[in-house]
């Protein structure tokens, strides 16, 4: 499709003399009898000029647009053909006719290339060592089934099981859900999604890159024993001002980017969710709303970030809440967190330095008026130096925190502040860690080894924990297109809740550290046509981990809760040992018109229960993800995601001897889900409009949660088990305007 161009043509000098204002806009007087073109190049669908566009002419004269998109060409009179080229835009060919001694002022608008995404942009070496799966660009924001949120893409990554559909319970290589860490620009994120099911708490367009480390990563990540998801936001773009507004059925979001004098860049973004009007169609007594904000200011190496989130769920019917709440108790559930980070990155000689301070406030108030709020102050300092064949990386980080249990609406009703047990107790917490790591090129560009160790200390109430984690990894480049990687190490963390929630951390330290010994070996091949293939084997051994219980059916073959826990943690947490092992296959294409990946995981996660080693409650043997995105003409993109998973284990009670049934002796039905997404963009002169339709679970598959047994004459019939589940489908439609 040819780009549409716009041009202004001025009249002859006589007209200019008659119209002084028009003369202001007229081109300059060329020297002699030559003509002149004064031009400016913009991107179509945007108000921002494009720098570096090469303009060649049939008169063998050329120019390059400056940072403001302007260029000047002195040309002989007569017709002249101009060609404008730029690597990120479709070329534009125009013909202008020039009169002797006259000039023209023109504007040209270039159309962005459809395939410009995934063209590699070198951002410098990775900050962390270890096997890594990276998502960028449209993979982050338009992955089918992701609802536009980068963090939802975690569920489609190799080695990741999602035993409860829609809920952000991620089981990475058999580790318990509470063992995964989520970082955003180095900050630990206390919550990923609004109310666990809705949109992400960070505007997706801010996130530039998401790295997923499933295991065997280096010592720079600490205080987690499972996988790590590390996301980075980007600063405001340098090519001018930008803005975007997106409207969906149930929320609206906006983002604005500013380039200010002195090189200051500012980015502001936010969401506001209003799903109540949809919920009211089902039940008018329930109100749900949420919102979030982000602010980022960059100036040279200094970055100031502020972000926060707020969720509120209210039940406005005393009869509805009577079965759920103590009489007269407040009927709101609110979650919120706020962070502010000041970060400085600098280079001093061969040293790359990063220092940051993070302040935070978290609050969780549950139905019944009980909850907790947390004040925190964190720090982070890293230093990395590179020699010819040696790299040294060291750092420290930590956090001081004050947790205060609250009865947020004291006097309004029978609140239950002890229901959350250890999670809501008053306490002051201190966590701190330090690490040092060295990477040696044993054989330059062929064999590289990384060895490191970290130490972490935790303190709350009268309990102090200390952990030391050594780790090492190797990378051998056997051929230019073939690499072998391996890693092994110890990963320890304090007791954790299965889902990330504000104000829920640094508790129950008396349970001791959770520990995982992780090892992984992989072979990665770069194939023709921008394909890559990877096969990885892993083994993990777990000690003292806090597993979440998904199946409360078996009362005998189970593991008892830790004696020292009270309230909700005692009900849903078990402290167990176990192991996991498996193999991951990944075929991926990142560049071109057709991109995506196929990942298959064959794995097993076991836990030691009172009746011996059994499959874990969230074990899923086979996991298949097929993600496909196709760029079609007319700025149309179609994507799909096929997800197939083995059902997780459940316990089918023996009708003749139900009390002695072995745990997890059968499985729920296998699950197949197909998600579809269609995006269409219309690019106008100064702005662009997108519309998208996404449907999750187009196959209307049933999500199963467990087994139940009918009661006849007051007696449960164990010979007639019924699968407990529901069919669902989730459509999402929206429009987006940007410039």
């Amino acid at each position: 499709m040819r780009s549409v161009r716009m041009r202004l043509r001025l009249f002859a000098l006589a007209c200019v003399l008659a119209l002084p204002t028009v003369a202001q806009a007229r081109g300059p007087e060329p020297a002699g009898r030559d003509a002149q073109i004064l031009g400016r190049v913009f991107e179509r669908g945007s108000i921002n000029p494009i720098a570096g566009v090469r303009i060649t002419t049939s008169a063998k004269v050329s120019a390059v647009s400056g940072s403001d998109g302007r260029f000047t060409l002195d040309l002989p009179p007569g017709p002249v053909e101009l060609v404008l080229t730029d690597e990120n835009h479709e070329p534009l060919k125009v013909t202008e006719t020039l009169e002797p001694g006259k000039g023209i002022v023109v504007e040209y608008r270039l159309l962005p290339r459809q395939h410009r995404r995934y063209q590699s942009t070198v951002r410098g070496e990775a900050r962390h060592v270890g096997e890594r799966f990276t998502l960028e660009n449209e993979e982050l924001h338009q992955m089918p089934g992701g609802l536009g949120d980068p963090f939802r893409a975690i569920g489609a990554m190799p080695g990741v099981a999602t035993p409860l559909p829609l809920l952000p319970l991620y089981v990475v290589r058999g580790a318990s859900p509470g063992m995964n860490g989520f970082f955003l620009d180095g900050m630990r994120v206390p919550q990923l999604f609004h109310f666990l099911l809705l949109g992400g708490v960070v505007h997706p367009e801010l996130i530039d890159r998401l790295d997923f480390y499933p295991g065997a990563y280096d010592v720079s990540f600490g205080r987690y024993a499972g996988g790590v998801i590390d996301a980075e936001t980007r600063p405001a773009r340098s090519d001018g001002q930008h803005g975007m507004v997106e409207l969906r059925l149930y929320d609206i979001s906006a983002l604005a980017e500013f380039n200010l004098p002195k090189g200051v860049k500012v980015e502001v973004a936010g969401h506001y969710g209003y799903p109540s009007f949809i919920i009211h169609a089902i039940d008018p007594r329930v109100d749900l709303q949420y919102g979030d904000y982000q602010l980022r200011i960059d100036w040279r190496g200094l970055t100031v970030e502020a972000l926060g989130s707020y969720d509120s769920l209210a039940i406005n019917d005393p009869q509805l809440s009577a079965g759920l709440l103590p009489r007269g108790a407040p009927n709101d559930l609110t979650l919120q967190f706020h962070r502010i980070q000041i970060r400085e990155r600098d280079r001093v000689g061969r040293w790359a330095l990063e220092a940051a301070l993070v302040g935070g406030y978290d609050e969780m108030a549950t139905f019944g008026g009980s909850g907790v709020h947390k004040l925190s102050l964190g720090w982070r300092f890293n230093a990395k130096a590179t020699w010819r064949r040696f790299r040294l990386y060291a750092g420290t980080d930590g956090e001081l925190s004050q947790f205060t249990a609250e009865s947020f609406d004291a006097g309004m009703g029978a609140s239950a502040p002890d229901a959350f047990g250890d999670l809501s107790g008053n306490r002051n917490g201190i966590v701190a860690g330090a690490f040092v790591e060295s990477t040696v090129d044993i054989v330059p560009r062929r064999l590289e080894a990384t060895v490191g160790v970290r130490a972490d200390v935790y303190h709350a109430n009268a309990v102090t924990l200390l952990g030391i984690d050594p780790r090492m990894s190797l990378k051998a480049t056997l051929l230019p297109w073939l690499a072998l990687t391996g890693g092994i190490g110890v990963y320890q963390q304090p007791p954790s809740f299965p889902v990330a929630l504000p104000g829920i951390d640094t508790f129950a330290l008396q349970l001791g550290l959770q520990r995982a010994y992780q090892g992984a070996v992989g072979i990665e091949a770069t194939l023709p046509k921008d394909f890559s293939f990877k096969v990885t084997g892993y083994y993990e051994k777990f000690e003292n981990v806090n597993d979440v219980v998904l199946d409360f059916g078996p009362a005998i073959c189970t593991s008892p809760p830790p004696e020292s826990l009270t309230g909700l943690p005692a009900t849903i947490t078990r402290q167990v040992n176990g192991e996991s092992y498996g193999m991951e296959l990944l075929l991926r294409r990142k560049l071109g018109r057709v991109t995506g990946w196929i990942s298959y995981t064959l794995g097993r996660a076991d836990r030691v229960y009172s009746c011996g080693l059994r499959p874990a409650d969230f074990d899923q043997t086979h996991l298949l993800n097929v993600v496909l995105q196709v760029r079609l003409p007319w700025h149309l993109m179609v994507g799909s995601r096929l997800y197939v998973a083995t059902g997780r284990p459940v316990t089918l009670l023996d009708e003749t001897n139900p009390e002695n049934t072995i745990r997890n002796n059968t499985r729920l039905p296998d699950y197949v889900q197909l998600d579809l997404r269609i995006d269409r963009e219309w690019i106008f002169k100064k702005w662009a409009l997108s519309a998208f339709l996404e449907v999750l679970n187009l196959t209307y598959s049933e999500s199963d949660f467990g087994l139940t047994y009918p009661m006849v004459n007051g007696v449960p019939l164990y010979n007639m088990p019924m699968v407990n589940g529901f069919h669902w489908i989730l459509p999402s439609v929206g429009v987006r305007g940007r410039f």
Partner: protein
Amino acid sequence: MSMLWRAGLALILFAGGCSWTFDGDASEIPLIGSAPDTEGQPHLNVAPAQSSVEIVYGADGRPWAIFDEALTTDGGDAKQGMRAVRVNPPGLQETLFADNGVFGDGHFYLLRDDPADAPDAAVHLTIQALPRDGHDAEFTLPLGPGLLLAGPGDQVFVYQVESPMTTTFLVQRVDKSFSRMIPILPGTDPSNPLQEGGMFFSVDGNFLFTQDATGDLVKHSTTSEADVDLGIQPAQMALDVGLGRFMTCGPMGLRSVPIDGSPESTLDPSPCDQTEPIYFRGGDVLYTVSGTLRRTARNGSTPPTTVLEDGQRLIAFGPAGALAYSRDPQGRYAAGAGDGWLSDWRFMERGRGAGWSRDGKKLRWLEHAAQESGVGELLSATVPNGAPLHLALNVRQYDELSDGRVLACDDRAFRGIQNRVVVIDEQARTARWVASQAAEYVHIPGSSDLLIDVVSGPSTYDIVRVPVPPR
């Protein structure tokens, strides 16, 4: 690589995976011994029990254990029924089925409904002794749902069909010597008669007292048609059996109302708070006036005195007239939890179940019990101002044995195999196992043994008898 570097690397690898825990809050009373195999002991149940065990007294005056169980009918089908096992002395047991029923004073009241579409459908009541003596009393009553009240000694009962069409209710002597129909209580909803009104028997069952929505208290004979109107009385009242009169608490103050209809007397003319209960303690009665708790002699021989000020809610009686109170209003926290004070000593932050030890020297309570389950940390402190001693965690029930040791069902954050019953010796600073997988316990009257609800399945139990280990 130098030797020093190798040694350092080896040390790190050796220390790898090491972690250390320094716990300044470790338990002061360790649990010694190994868990007994309670589940492997002989059961009172045959099939899994489907409810907790209760102790009732049979018609033979002996304690019996009763619980629901999946029994086999004569047709070979499994059906929920009830099993009753005599526990002191052991040796007798019975099973029975019913659509509905209650247990009175040594007798079962078993209700079986005819099919609703059957002609002249009715409900059949069988009053059956425990143990069964062959002299069951059978009655055919109008089809319900119905309200059934058993009288003391199972000599009389009340039955009312809960329906808007109901106009009368039945008072029936079990020996069929007499019955009468009484009009439903004025101002009450016949489909929910006790919501606005009240009914209760006298101790000997010869009279039925009713109070209608207006407060009119009437004494009905259950052996004749005689009635005595005792006048409009407050809803808050208690029967003083010893003096043969009611204590009423209302706008006219604390009053004594003889049940024989003779003139009433006023013990305290100050308007009495009807939302607060009346307590009998020895020869005194305690009642609330304008938020303050007052005390006076039941026979009116002493003037009223204030024992707790406004804002102080009584939570436990102690020796020598001591009263533990709470400054948290009723209902502030779940499970009735609140703070606890003795004089100006705040011994409890947010708990329930406070009580004195037998020797009156200690207070014990469940701390941090403000949650729906009411489970809390069992603490003990010397009176007054003693530092609390942690006895057990996640305690649901506890009581003191005659030898001063404390019996507790702990590790009971939720029902599961981790539940246990332990006996705690505060003097020796030790705790010992009594039963494992124990969700609840009851004492066997006349014995030092316990009956344990042993968790055997998702919702089932085994009922096991265990001794309490001696000191």
